[in-house]
C-alpha cells in the first residue's frame, strides 16, 4: 500500500464547485434530509465568480432584494457554514470516472472519493481570442472581460487605460462601466451580431448612461502592436453572413482589447466521466431531473447551460439536489439499460448519437426547432408522476411579437405562448403544465418560434 495516498473515501453526494450552483445544491440536499454531503471548491473561498462581480443586480428574483455578487454569495456561504456541510477548499478535481470515483488534489495531498451521486457545478469559462481566430499581433493588452474584472475587483490592478471591447456579453458591458468609473476611456463596444448578446438593462445602465458607443454588426479584424496593443482595426459585417467589409474598416487606437465573446461550460471533467454533451449548449444532455447520460451524475448552473441570472442558477441547482437525493433514496437498483439513438438537432453539428441509457420510450427528446438555438432539458422522462416541466431556451435571433410553439412529432400543437420580444441575449422559459404531460405515443417534442 502506498505511503501517501489515503484509502478510498466515501460520500453520499459530492458537489463539484462551490459557486452559486454548488452552494444552492448543497443547502437544498441537506434540507431534503441528506447528511453525508461533500462540496469541493478549487478556490480558497466559496462563492465562485460572484466574488468578483461587485456590481448589483443579483437576487431580485431569489431574495427579492438587489444585491451585489459578493452579497449574494455571502447569503449562501453563511447559510452553508451554519449548516455544517463538509467542504474542501483549494481542492481541484482531476478526474471523475463513470462509476463516480473522483480523484482530487489539494495542498493536503491526493484523495480518491467514491460518491453515491455527483452534482456537476463547475461553471463556465470565457472564449479566448484564439477561439475566434482574430488575425494580427499577439501582444500584451488583449484579455477576456472576466480576467479584467478579476484583476480590477479582486486585485486592484488596472488592465488598461484606453479600451475597445469586442462582444456585448454581460461581463463586457459591466466592465465597460467599471473601467470608465476607474478612469479608463472605453472607446467602443463592438458586436458582431445585429443585436446585443447581453441583457437590455446592462446595455442601458453600462453603455448608454456613459455614452459608450455600441457598434452592432461590427467586428475586430486585426490587432496591432508588437509589445503592447496600439490599436485595433474594426469593420462592419454583413448582417446575415457576418463577413467583414474591409473597405469600410477603420483603426481605433487603444492599449487594451477586452473580449466578451461568449462563455463555454467547463465540461472536461464531465467528458472524462462519459457524460454526453449537447453541441448547442456545450453542456450535458439532461432530462427534467437534470440527470446526465451517466446515472447518478447531475448538472446545474453554467456548466449545464449559460444563464443570464444567478437567481435562475440557484433554483436550478436546488432541482438538481432534489433529484440527486431522490436518486440516492432509490437505493440504486440497476434496471436493464438500453442505449437509444438520440437525434438532437442543432445548428452546429449533425445529429449526435448518444449512449443515453433509457427504459426505451420513457425518454422523450425535446428538439430545438426553427428559431431556437438550444433548449434545456433536452429530454423528458415521461414515466413519472406528471408535474410542471420548465424548458429554458435561447432564441436564435431577435423576434418581436412571436409565438413559442411546442409541437409533437405529428406537428400537433402541445402548447403555445405569445411573447412581445425574444432575444438571444435573454434566455427564455416555457412552463409546460402537468396537464400536457406527454403520452406514450409521442415520439418527440419540438420547440420553435413562429411569427
Amino acid at each position, binding site marked *: 500500500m502506498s*505511503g*501517501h495516498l489515503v484509502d478510498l473515501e466515501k460520500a453520499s453526494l459530492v458537489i463539484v464547485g462551490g459557486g452559486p450552483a454548488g452552494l444552492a445544491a448543497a443547502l437544498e440536499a441537506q434540507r431534503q434530509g441528506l447528511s453525508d454531503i461533500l462540496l469541493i471548491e478549487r478556490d480558497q473561498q466559496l462563492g465562485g465568480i460572484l466574488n468578483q462581480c461587485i456590481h448589483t443586480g443579483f437576487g431580485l428574483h431569489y431574495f427579492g432584494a438587489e444585491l451585489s455578487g459578493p452579497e449574494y454569495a455571502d447569503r449562501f456561504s453563511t447559510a452553508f457554514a451554519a449548516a455544517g456541510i463538509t467542504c474542501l477548499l483549494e481542492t481541484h478535481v482531476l*478526474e471523475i470516472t463513470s462509476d463516480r470515483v473522483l480523484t482530487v488534489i489539494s495542498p493536503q495531498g491526493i484523495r480518491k472519493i467514491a460518491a453515491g451521486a455527483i452534482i456537476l457545478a463547475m461553471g463556465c469559462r470565457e472564449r479566448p481570442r*484564439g477561439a475566434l481566430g482574430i488575425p494580427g499581433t499577439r501582444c500584451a493588452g488583449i484579455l477576456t472581460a472576466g480576467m479584467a474584472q478579476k484583476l480590477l475587483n479582486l486585485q486592484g490592478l488596472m488592465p488598461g487605460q484606453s479600451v475597445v471591447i469586442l462582444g456585448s456579453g454581460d461581463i463586457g458591458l459591466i466592465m465597460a462601466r467599471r473601467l470608465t468609473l476607474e478612469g479608463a476611456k472605453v472607446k467602443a463596444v463592438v458586436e458582431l451580431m445585429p443585436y446585443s448578446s447581453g441583457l437590455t438593462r446592462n446595455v442601458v445602465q453600462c453603455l448608454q448612461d456613459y455614452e459608450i458607443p455600441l457598434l452592432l454588426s461590427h467586428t475586430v479584424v486585426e490587432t496591432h502592436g508588437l509589445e503592447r496593443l496600439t490599436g485595433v482595426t474594426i469593420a462592419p459585417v454583413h448582417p446575415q453572413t457576418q463577413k467583414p467589409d474591409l473597405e469600410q474598416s477603420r483603426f481605433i487606437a487603444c492599449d487594451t482589447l477586452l473580449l466578451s465573446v461568449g462563455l463555454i461550460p467547463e465540461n472536461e471533467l464531465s467528458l472524462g466521466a462519459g457524460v454526453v454533451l449537447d453541441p448547442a449548449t456545450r453542456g450535458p444532455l439532461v432530462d427534467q431531473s437534470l440527470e446526465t447520460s451517466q446515472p447518478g451524475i447531475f448538472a446545474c448552473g453554467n456548466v449545464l447551460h449559460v444563464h443570464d441570472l444567478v437567481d435562475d442558477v440557484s433554483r436550478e441547482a436546488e432541482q438538481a439536489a432534489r433529484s440527486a437525493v431522490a436518486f440516492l433514496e432509490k437505493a440504486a437498483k440497476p434496471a436493464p439499460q438500453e442505449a437509444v439513438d438520440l437525434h438532437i438537432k442543432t445548428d452546429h453539428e449533425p445529429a449526435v448519437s448518444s449512449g443515453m441509457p433509457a427504459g426505451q420510450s420513457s425518454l422523450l427528446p425535446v428538439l430545438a426547432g426553427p428559431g431556437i438555438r438550444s433548449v434545456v432539458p433536452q429530454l423528458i422522462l415521461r414515466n413519472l408522476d406528471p408535474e410542471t416541466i420548465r424548458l429554458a431556451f435561447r432564441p436564435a435571433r431577435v423576434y418581436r411579437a412571436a409565438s413559442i410553439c411546442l409541437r409533437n412529432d405529428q406537428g400537433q400543437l402541445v402548447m403555445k405562448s405569445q411573447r412581445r420580444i425574444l432575444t438571444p441575449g435573454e434566455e427564455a422559459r416555457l412552463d409546460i403544465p402537468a396537464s400536457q404531460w406527454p403520452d406514450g405515443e409521442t415520439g418527440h417534442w419540438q420547440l420553435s418560434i413562429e411569427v
Partner: protein
Amino acid sequence: MFDVVIIGAGVIGCAIARELSRYPLSLAVLDQASDVCEGTSKANSGIIHAGYDAKPGTNKARYNVRGNPMVYQWAQELAVPCKNNTSLVLAFSEADLPKIDALIERGQQNGVKGLSRISREEVLDREPLVNPSVTGALLAETGGIISPYGLTIALAEHAAVNGVEFRLDCQVQGLSHHPDPEGKNACFLVQTSHGPIQARAVVNAAGVFADSLHNLLSEDKLTITARRGEYYMLDKRIGAQFTATLFQLPTDKGKGILVTPTVEQTLILGPTSDTIPDKTDTRTTAAKLEEILTTAALTWPGLRKDSFITSFAGLRAHLAEGDFRIGRSPDVPSYYLAAGIESPGLTAAPAIAIDLAEQIAADFDLVLKPEFLPPPPPLPDFSLHQLADPDELDRLAAEIARDPAMGRIVCRCEHVTEAQIRAAIRRPVGARTLDGIKRRTRANMGRCQGGFCTPRVLEILAEELACDITTLTKSGGQSQILTGQLEVKA
C-alpha cells in the same frame, strides 16, 4: 573578455552553448529578447524530420539525417517531451503515388532508414480521421515530434549549470573584429545595448538577423529573408485523436500544410509560407488563416472551428541559396556561422552544434573539462494522462507531502501547480515573463489561454522576482500586462 560569445539564444545558439560548455571556456549567449527561445525556435511545427525531403548533398540533408537520432537522444537526456510518432506524407490521387516513391528514393539517397509506401487501407487504419480519398502514403518511421521550446530551454539550463552566462534583453548594435598582427590577442568587440563585450571568438546564431550581423564582419555578404509561417492550435481533446504527423506532398514553397499532434497533445495545423519584409512581423493574417483551413481540410475533412484555442506565427530564416550555412567564416578568423536555419533546423540542431563545437575546440586546441555537470532535474510534471498510473499518483502525493504548493493547482486547464511555477522562476535561466512561465510550465497554454490563471501567475512572478506587479511583461520590452494599480482610499 569572453572566450566565445554566441549571438542568438534560439535552439541553435543554446545547443552550441551547451556543447561548448564541455570545454574550459568562458562563454556568453546574447539575445535581444527577454528570454531564451523567443524567435523562430518558439513558433515552428516541432517536428523531428526523418530527412526524406531535403535535396541530397545539401547541408539540410546531411544535418537532418545525422540530427534525427541525436534529437531523440538529447530529449531523453534532458527529459524534454518528445515522441517518435512517425510521419506520413499523404497522396490523394493515383498521379501522386509516383511522387511518394520519388520521396522515398530521395530519402534513401540521404541515408534515411525506415521509409516505405503504405496503402490507403493502412493509412486509414493508422489514422482513421484522414480523408478517405487518400490513395496511399509515405511512412517515415523515424519521424517524430518534440517541444521546440522545451528543448531550447533545457539546453540553456544545462549550459548555464556548466557556467555559460546568458545576457538577455541585450541587443547587439555593433560587431567588429580586431586582428592582432602577432596573432595572439585578436578579438571581437560586440557593442550591445548593455555596453561593449569583448570575445576571442563569435558564433552567429542570430536567426533571421544573422545576415546583418554577418555582413558587419565578412565581405562574403549574406541575404536572409524572413518567411512567415502561420498556425492554428486545437484543443487536446482533438489532438488525442491523431497519432502521426500528416504531411501533404511538398511543393516548391516548402513542406506544405501539416496536421500534427504535439507532445502536449494539442493539434497544430500549418504552416503557411509567406516572404515578408519586416523581420519582426509575426502577426497572423485573415487570408493565411483561411488558407490553413481550406488546405488542412484535404488531410482532415472533419476539421471544425469550435476546438481552436489559438493561432500563431513564426518566422523562418531563409538564405537565398536555400541551404544552411554552417561553420568557419572563410574570411574572418574565429568567427563561426550557423545561418539560414529553417526547417529542418530543429532536427539538425544537435549535429550543427556538435560540428561547430568541434571546429572551435580544434581551432583553439581545447580539451574537454574533467567535470561536466548533468542537467538540472526536470521540472516536475504531472499532467492528467499520467495520473491513471497509481505509481505516478503516489509520486505526486509524496511531492505534495514535501511541498504543499505542489498540490495547489494554478492553471486548471493544464494542471500546473504553484510549486511548478515557482520552480520555473527559480531555475537556471528562469522565467521572468508571463510567456516564460507559459513555455516552461504550460500555464497559459491551455484551452482558456490564461483567462483564469494569469492573475495568480502574475502574483507569483511578482513575489518571486520581488518586483512591482505592474512592471511585469508578457514577453519583455514594453509588453506590460497592467497599466497601474488602484489607489487604496482610507
